[in-house]
């Protein structure tokens, strides 16, 4: 009893409790034996360099990652238990790393937030009030109908926060929410959090951050390094404990000695910035005159000019989306300016000139290295691509490894690295060929302070010792201060350009940050939130996530998926035109009537009798005569080349023998390379032979001979004219309705895995069944549109009438596309990349449908394994219905069994997909 009491007491004061928690990704350990009590009702910060396990820990607490080892209690319950996770998920909110990681980029602000409101079961007036209040507080009210992908970084993060807060959570988990966000937006973001916390003192906030100055304002900190906890306590406590002035220093002091130098960035501070006198002489490294770039009506960059002398560090500061990246891309030649010109090293920029590229190093804002290669492979690849002499590659790679602290991760895949380490790698790659000019687009975004220090000391060395010109954009003001000159940019225009000291002086501010804020606030259009209004209301967001199945959540996913689908013109066009086009190709192209076969004759007789026979053969519509053959060798050769499908040979004396009633023979060679065609030719020539002699006897003797006493009256049912189209068209519909829906469905799910929005499945109350069914509905609708266009085409263009009931056909089509999309879902469970999903679905669906579903031979004729595939393949049954209704005029009653079997696939596939889909990440 004492023990339970103890637990109860702990629950009251701690929001999360970790006992001996360890976590590993493959062989690399992210967390080692963590024991931690996170106090409730306060703002708790996780601090530490990149890759020490902060994100992993947050993911575990949020329930987004599956607990591997140890015990984890969150909000008083065991996170290893899935019923508890389901119950607790409406009380937790989680914002993953990266800008807009949990958002859907083609959806508008309103649609994104509405989606989350539905997931958490908000409805009616309360839903509207809650959304309006959040949008108002974040200043997003005026941008409601703008797609999330077109928001600036700061606004994306605010929208992400709105979506996370919609259900008024008790625990808010933020993973580096302000990384890559400009200072002004960052300021506003934290003001918003403060306001919310003032209004909701009971809410606990758990944040990971790389900004030590932000950590100063938290209540309680957890200092982490190498998967372990160094110390916990308030910022003041930590500073007191280590006897240091700043949190930065306190953190360094907490580290074991061998890590101190590495994490702090070493001797970075010692290298003093000295103005090089010779700097401005000679040809400038970059000259830009009146650069302007327009995308349609939108002017991204307006009239930007600057001159940067060799060896200068030129900083580029500005809010998110102000045109910094666009300007940099124009300097590299990736974008061609609409107006104005750029000169690099005195000559006009020529994007095609490879020699210029050899002198420039560029690092783009988003990680753009090969995630499937290891760190070493990435470095070596780029060294080779820049044509470094082979013998210098290894020393160069070692040198960079040293400089950028990559030694420990050399053999890891770049994709598995934490954000900050990736940035270091990108930078190492950008300087691998020792360029004269470095263009760096937010290179330190998401990099921990120590690494940034090291990085800047390297930049300084490059600039001062090697005379490398550096053009760099950043959101860190302390980095701006280290530049020789900086330029402040906003909305595509340069507001000011001077040395940091001069800018501070001109703005009459205390420091660069204040100068920056002042300059920007004067021109910024984003209205600040009305801070005074209540951001959240408990009355309006009573979560109801406990229900095991909620139609509302299902429909939320269905609506969202449909919107994404509707906004993709290629996919929409395909629904209407693509499948119709394919049907035309298949319908007209595939005909099983074998006609116009090439034949030639080796006539060793040259008698009127042989000529008469040849005329009869060439007169049939099946055969077309080619120039005669003169020798056996020629016959062989022409058969081998495939020119002839049939060769006839008349022996010498054929005509004489025939006239005198002696028995004789005609030899025939048939090309059997294609068995079906061979069979058909054989049938044709035998029939021709028989009818020729019947006719000959009739002509000669005037009476019809009785060649056989048995006559067989054949009746071709369902397709009296034996028209290929009538048989093919009903068979093409099942083929097209299996490929396309299955592929789109599989990609629809795997895409979420690849782009990261699958996290919403992990941390919201939505169940796997709701997720799968919700995503399936739009694709079923989409496929039914395809179906309609196929049927219209069949009836009106191909003139193949539906003899049975259209309703029966439509109902079966609905069942069938439900099954085929379900098939796509099952396949998606195994694939983690879109390309794998694509290949897998194509391979898995094409063969059984074409070979084993009764397209050419009935399933009853298959044997063994293939017969089993045929029986358990949905296309078999839909093909039967399709043919039955189209050509045989069958009714629902006749096809009952096929309907039942088709329907039986649905629960089986759904069950399989649910079982195979994971509700938590690894």
């Amino acid at each position: 009893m004492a023990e339970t009491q103890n637990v109860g007491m702990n629950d009251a004061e701690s929001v999360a409790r970790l006992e001996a928690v360890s976590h590993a990704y493959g062989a690399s350990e992210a967390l080692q034996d963590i024991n931690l009590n996170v106090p409730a009702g306060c703002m708790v910060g996780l601090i530490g360099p990149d890759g020490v396990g902060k994100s992993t820990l947050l993911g575990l607490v949020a329930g987004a990652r599956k607990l591997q080892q140890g015990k984890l209690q969150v909000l008083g319950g065991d996170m290893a238990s899935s019923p508890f996770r389901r119950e607790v998920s409406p009380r937790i909110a989680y914002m993953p790393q990266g800008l807009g990681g949990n958002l859907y980029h083609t959806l508008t602000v309103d649609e994104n937030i509405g989606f989350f409101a539905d997931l958490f079961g908000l409805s009616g007036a309360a839903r509207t009030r809650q959304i309006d209040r959040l949008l108002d507080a974040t200043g997003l009210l005026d941008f409601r109908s703008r797609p999330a992908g077109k928001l600036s970084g700061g606004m994306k993060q605010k929208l992400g926060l709105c979506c996370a807060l919609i259900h008024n959570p008790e625990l808010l988990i933020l993973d580096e929410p302000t990384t890559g966000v400009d200072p002004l937006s960052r300021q506003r973001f934290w003001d918003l959090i403060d306001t919310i916390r003032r209004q909701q003192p009971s809410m606990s906030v758990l944040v990971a951050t790389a900004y030590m100055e932000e950590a100063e304002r938290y209540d309680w900190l957890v200092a982490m390094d190498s998967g372990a906890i160094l110390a916990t306590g308030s910022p003041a406590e930590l500073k007191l404990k280590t006897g240091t002035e700043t949190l930065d220093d306190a953190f360094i002091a907490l580290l074991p000695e061998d890590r101190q130098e590495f994490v702090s960035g070493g001797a970075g501070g010692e290298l003093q910035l000295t103005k090089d006198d010779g700097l401005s002489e000679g040809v400038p490294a970059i000259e830009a005159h009146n650069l302007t770039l327009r995308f349609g009506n939108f002017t991204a960059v307006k009239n930007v000019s600057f001159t940067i002398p060799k060896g200068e560090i030129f900083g580029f500061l500005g809010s998110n989306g102000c045109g910094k990246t666009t300007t940099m891309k124009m300097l590299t030649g990736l974008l061609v300016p609409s107006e104005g010109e750029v000169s690099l090293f005195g000559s006009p920029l020529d994007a095609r000139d490879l020699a210029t590229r050899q002198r420039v190093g560029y690092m783009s804002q988003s990680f753009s290295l090969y995630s499937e290669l290891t760190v070493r492979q990435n470095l070596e690849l780029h060294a080779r691509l820049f044509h470094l002499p082979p013998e210098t590659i290894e020393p160069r790679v070692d040198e960079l490894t040293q400089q950028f602290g990559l030694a420990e991760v050399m053999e890891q895949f770049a994709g598995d690295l934490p954000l900050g380490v990736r940035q270091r790698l990108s930078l190492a790659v950008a300087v691998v060929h020792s360029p004269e000019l470095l263009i760096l687009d937010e290179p330190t975004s998401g990099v921990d302070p120590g690494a940034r220090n090291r990085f800047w000391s390297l930049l300084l060395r490059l600039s001062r010792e090697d005379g490398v010109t550096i053009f760099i954009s950043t959101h860190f003001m302390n980095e701006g201060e280290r530049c020789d000159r900086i330029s402040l940019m906003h909305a595509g225009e340069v507001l000011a350009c001077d040395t940091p000291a001069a800018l501070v002086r001109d703005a009459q501010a205390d420091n660069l940050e204040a100068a920056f804020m002042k300059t920007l606030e004067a021109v910024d259009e984003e209205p600040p939130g009305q801070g005074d209004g209540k951001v959240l209301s408990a009355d309006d967001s009573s979560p109801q996530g406990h229900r095991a199945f909620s139609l509302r959540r299902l429909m939320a996913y269905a609506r969202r998926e449909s919107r994404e689908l509707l906004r993709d013109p290629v996919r929409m066009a395909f629904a209407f035109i693509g499948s119709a086009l394919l049907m035309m190709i298949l319908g007209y192209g595939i005909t099983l009537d074998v006609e116009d076969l090439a034949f030639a004759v080796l006539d060793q007789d040259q008698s009127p009798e042989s000529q008469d026979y040849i005329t009869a053969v060439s007169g049939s519509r099946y055969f077309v005569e080619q120039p005669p053959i003169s020798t056996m060798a020629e016959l062989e050769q022409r058969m081998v080349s495939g020119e002839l499908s049939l060769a006839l040979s008349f022996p010498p004396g054929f005509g004489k023998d025939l006239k005198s009633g002696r028995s004789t023979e005609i030899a025939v060679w048939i090309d059997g390379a294609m068995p079906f065609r061979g069979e058909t030719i054989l049938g044709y020539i035998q029939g021709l032979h028989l009818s020729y002699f019947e006719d000959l006897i009739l002509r000669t003797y005037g009476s019809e001979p009785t060649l056989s006493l048995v006559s067989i009256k054949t009746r071709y049912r369902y397709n009296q004219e034996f028209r290929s189209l009538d048989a093919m068209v009903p068979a093409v519909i099942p083929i097209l309705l299996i490929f396309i829906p299955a592929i789109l469905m599989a990609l629809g799910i795997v895409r979420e895995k690849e782009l990261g929005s699958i996290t919403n499945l992990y941390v919201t109350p939505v169940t796997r069944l709701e997720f799968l069914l919700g995503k399936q509905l739009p694709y079923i609708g989409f496929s039914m549109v395809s179906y309609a266009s196929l049927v219209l085409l069949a009836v009106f263009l191909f003139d193949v009438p539906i003899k049975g009931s259209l309703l029966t056909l439509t109902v079966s089509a609905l069942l069938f596309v439900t099954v085929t999309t379900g098939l796509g879902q099952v396949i998606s469970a195994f694939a983690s990349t879109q390309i794998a999903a694509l290949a897998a679905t194509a391979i898995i669906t094409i063969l059984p449908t074409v070979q084993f579903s009764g397209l050419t031979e009935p399933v009853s004729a298959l044997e063994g394994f293939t017969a089993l595939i045929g029986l358990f393949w949905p296309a078999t049954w839909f093909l039967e219905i399709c043919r039955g209704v189209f050509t045989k005029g069958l009714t629902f009653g006749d096809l009952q069994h096929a309907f039942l079997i088709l329907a039986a696939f649905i629960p089986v596939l759904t069950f399989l997909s649910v079982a195979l889909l994971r509700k938590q990440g690894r």
Partner: protein
Amino acid sequence: MMESLGTIWNLGIKELRSVWHDKVLLIFVLLAFTLIVYTAGSAGSMELHNAPVAVVDEDQTVLSGRVIDSLQQPWFLKPDLVSLSQIDEMLDQGTHTFALVIPEGFERDIRSGKVSSLQLDIDATRMTQAFIGASYIEQIITTEVAEYLETGSSASTLQVELITRVSFNPNLEGTWFGGVMELITEITLISIILTGAALIREREHGTVEHLMVMPVRPFEIMAAKVWANGLVVMLAATLSITIVIQGVLAVPVQGSVLLFLFGALIHLFSTTAIGILIGTVARTMPQFGLLLILTILPLQLLSGGITPRESMPDLVQNIMLAAPTTHFVSMAQAILYRGAGLEVVWPQMLALAGISVVFFSLSLALFRRHLAV
């Protein structure tokens, strides 16, 4: 020049590593060239095989029994004896393609020299089986009746005998055909998927942009993708033809496997170029998937590999002359089935090479323009 070759080589190695890294993809490539080729080969294709027949025997005599027994495997399944009223339902449900009705007095009529009529109902929705099967049944029954009569008049035999020889595949075995055709399909499909998707992946991950600020030409990027992904497919194809087709399926390949692989190599230049073409046009992976289907189906179905080319409308035949698969299929059939040598297939090889050059240049031009934006 040497630098350029070095770049192509290094980028190609990177491509190979990417393929190697995606294990699921790799497994499916392997499956495509082994299991799928095997099942396609062992399933047989469109020749008459195990056709299900239903027989209504109203005669119940020795002769009717002999007629029924004469419909044998592998062409026909053992006939099911049914009553007249069941025929419609069986054909409707598609369980049987043929229904033969032997009328009462069949044997009596034949013995007394009168012509007797059998009725054969055929489900014509199964085009291939229906047509071939009908002529088989007619021939088998005629022969059976003639043998039964033995002593009968010689009027039933013709003076001129037709001696038929089926070249290259005397027993018209489907295994020979299905496996090889599937291999050809997979070579085209997998090479387009690998190359195109590799390009889309680079774009979705922003690495193409990264390449464009390095001293790397679009030609080099493309050439690297072509050789690396082409190599993967070549390896898989070699494995498939030697181990699966010649080994497990025991198909007697007539001509030189090496010559076939050489032809496949030329073919791969155009298919990988098509992959890049689609990858350039498509913005996202789902779009790539759709365009892929739109390309691959006509390339395969209209190439002459599934249905004979001469039966297609002239317009389709002419358009398909521009498709690499048409020439590849006809070359592969000539080499593998008919044992043709270089002296026979050089025109196809030349055509393939020409088409490859055209597709490669077209892709390159588009790819360049795409990167320039």
